């Protein structure tokens, strides 16, 4: 494995603290999973010899062999279908779909098969599959190489959906997803792959129960604050933290809630935060209409209507396709737009 060992130390319960990028953290989580559970398999397009287009699977084939880590032909529906069959035969597949926009060809296998097989079989066939999906924009990529499919997946019964925002969460949430006996869509924010931070490598077991960590579905207060809650996930968490810093200069104290799990959503966490701050702005990259921001907004409004000093604001991508290069920054929620929404909610 290639992460730098600078900054290595020891955490609370003796776990190693290593500074690494998110891409390395995901690689490390895959390595852990492959090591600890011989039923895990990593496969997809170019994940073997190449180590993935983002090098997330770098070195894994060399370490675990072609039977555990392998390239597939170029067919996303086939990849997920393969995972379903492997799961029915007792394996714990971790397929990668190379880019968000290429998850669409696999939607039928994801929705009609993977997400429903446990239900259809009345619990006889479990689907412990983690679909890794490099997601979201921010890198001015070619068409289909930067998209946000969380609303689609969050609507599908039987799926769980998660999007980490930093290396430490990327590590833990991936292990949590892999160890879950339910199918999980694990959305990796490409724009944060090179973000470098400390990661608690708690060895063979990073699961909630073992580490006293959060259960599946738990959100995280990325920054506590009093005047309004910014709700975000993936790369937008960092943008919101930046907004909070800027707002702080004007004496506005923003809370940033990293939703993390997009299905199930931490309604209690949302309600607790917003009942304190009385104001909320939800931020996401995906287009506005029928985006997950609508769900977050509705959940908050349903739960803490009487505490709300203003309607929940949504700052999102516009209802247009993710655009090319120089237009992408104008499509994605800008710091200004988020600040303006904060102002609107404060002045409501």
């Amino acid at each position, binding site marked *: 494995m290639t992460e730098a060992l600078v900054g290595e130390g020891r955490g609370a319960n003796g776990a190693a603290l290593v500074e690494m990028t998110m891409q390395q953290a995901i690689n490390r989580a895959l390595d852990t999973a492959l090591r600890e559970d011989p039923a895990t398999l990593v496969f997809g397009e170019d994940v073997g010899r190449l180590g993935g287009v983002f090098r997330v699977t770098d070195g894994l084939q060399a370490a675990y062999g072609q039977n555990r880590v392998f390239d597939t032909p170029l067919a996303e*529906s086939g990849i997920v279908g393969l995972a379903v069959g492997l799961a*029915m035969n007792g394996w714990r597949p971790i397929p990668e779909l190379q880019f968000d926009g290429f998850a669409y060809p696999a939607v039928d296998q994801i929705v009609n098969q993977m997400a429903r097989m446990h239900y259809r*079989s009345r619990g006889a066939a479990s689907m412990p599959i983690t679909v890794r999906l490099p997601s979201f924009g921010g890198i001015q990529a070619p068409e289909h190489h930067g998209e946000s499919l969380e609303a689609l997946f969050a609507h599908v019964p039987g799926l769980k959906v998660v999007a980490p925002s930093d290396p430490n969460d990327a590590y833990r949430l991936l292990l949590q997803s892999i160890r879950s006996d339910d199918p999980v869509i694990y959305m990796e924010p490409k724009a944060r792959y090179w973000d470098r931070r400390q990661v608690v490598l708690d060895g063979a077991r990073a699961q909630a129960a073992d580490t006293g960590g959060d259960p599946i579905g738990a959100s995280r207060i990325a920054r506590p604050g009093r005047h309004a809650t910014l709700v975000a996930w993936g790369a937008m968490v960092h943008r919101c933290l930046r907004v909070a810093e800027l707002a702080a200069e004007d004496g506005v104290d923003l809370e940033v809630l990293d939703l993390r799990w997009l299905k199930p959503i931490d309604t209690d966490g949302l309600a607790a935060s917003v009942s304190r701050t009385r104001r909320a702005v939800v931020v996401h990259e995906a287009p506005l209409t029928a985006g997950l921001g609508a769900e977050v907004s509705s959940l908050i409004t349903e739960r803490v209507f009487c505490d709300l000093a203003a309607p929940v604001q949504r700052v999102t991508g516009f209802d247009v396709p993710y655009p090319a290069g120089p237009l992408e920054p104008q499509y994605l929620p800008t710091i200004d737009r988020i600040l303006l929404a904060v102002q609107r909610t404060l002045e409501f």
Partner: protein
Amino acid sequence: MQTHAPPGAGSTPDRTGALPAESARRIYRDMLTARLLDTEAIALQRQGVFPAYVSLRGQEAAQVASAAALDRDRDFAFPTYREMAVALTLGVDMVGYLASHRALWHGGRYDPIASRFGSINAVVGGPVPHAVGWALGERLRGETGCAIAYFGDGASSQGDVHEALNFAGVFGSPVVFFCQNNRWALSVPNERQIAGGSIAARAAGYGMPGITVDGNDAAAVHNATRSALDRARSGGGPTLIEALTYRLAPHSTSDDTTRYRDRGEEHAWQERDPLPRLGTALEEAGHADTAFFEQIEDGARAAVERIRDGIATAPPPAGSDLFTYVYREPTEELARQQRLWREEVEP
């Protein structure tokens, strides 16, 4: 369609003799039981017990004789929605199987893993890649089980089937692709479905054997399937079998064949009914006599009766089942919704 030229003409009616007597008799028994159960199911639909049913009438040889080649301890079958006779042959709990047609549970109410027969799957083409994955899983574990994927002529048009064939070829998965070409995909005949006219001919393009068999000839089906399984089991990789047969009944009990096909065609295929054909062959080969047929028929009738009684008394699904099976590890949100259901909906 060349593929559906009358198979009777040139074929030797007693190729059944190629089957060991015991196999042939067992296959006949299961085919007869399937036929009677199919007939019963249509009656149950008419009586309003089943909201709908999809008959496999005419395809008994294709289904039973192929399934009979499977090793029930090692192999695994991936069905569509029309493989009732495969289920029967593999010993699936038929009350559980028919629970799907009774609309008690999508996918049926049997354990697909224990039965080694996947849940009933209504997405045309959808389960075929699962067979490839399952089979690859056997190979990776160093075991010797094979998967068989059942699908129709219409399903052959789906991209998923192509992706599955290609994956199987690339990975050398021990899988048998078993296409029942019953000439019709609902109202669409082979001519407007299958470019080139032969599904078996697709196999060569994936570097695997493509076998066309008379799907109404139980022995031919059985032997082809057994060879393909042997080949797969010994590391020879996948095979595609196209069994030419015919859907004697409408697509489903809701269908009306008069809108799209000739009675004449149906009658012609009626005469190639696989069931009497195997019966005659058994008799001619000296493997069966009147006593045998009587005994078999009694047994089949008794079996069908038991299943019918089972269906009659099958309990409706519990309302809470709505929530029970969505996740292996339930979520708090769904538990909340279940509480709401209990308060506002539960009868």
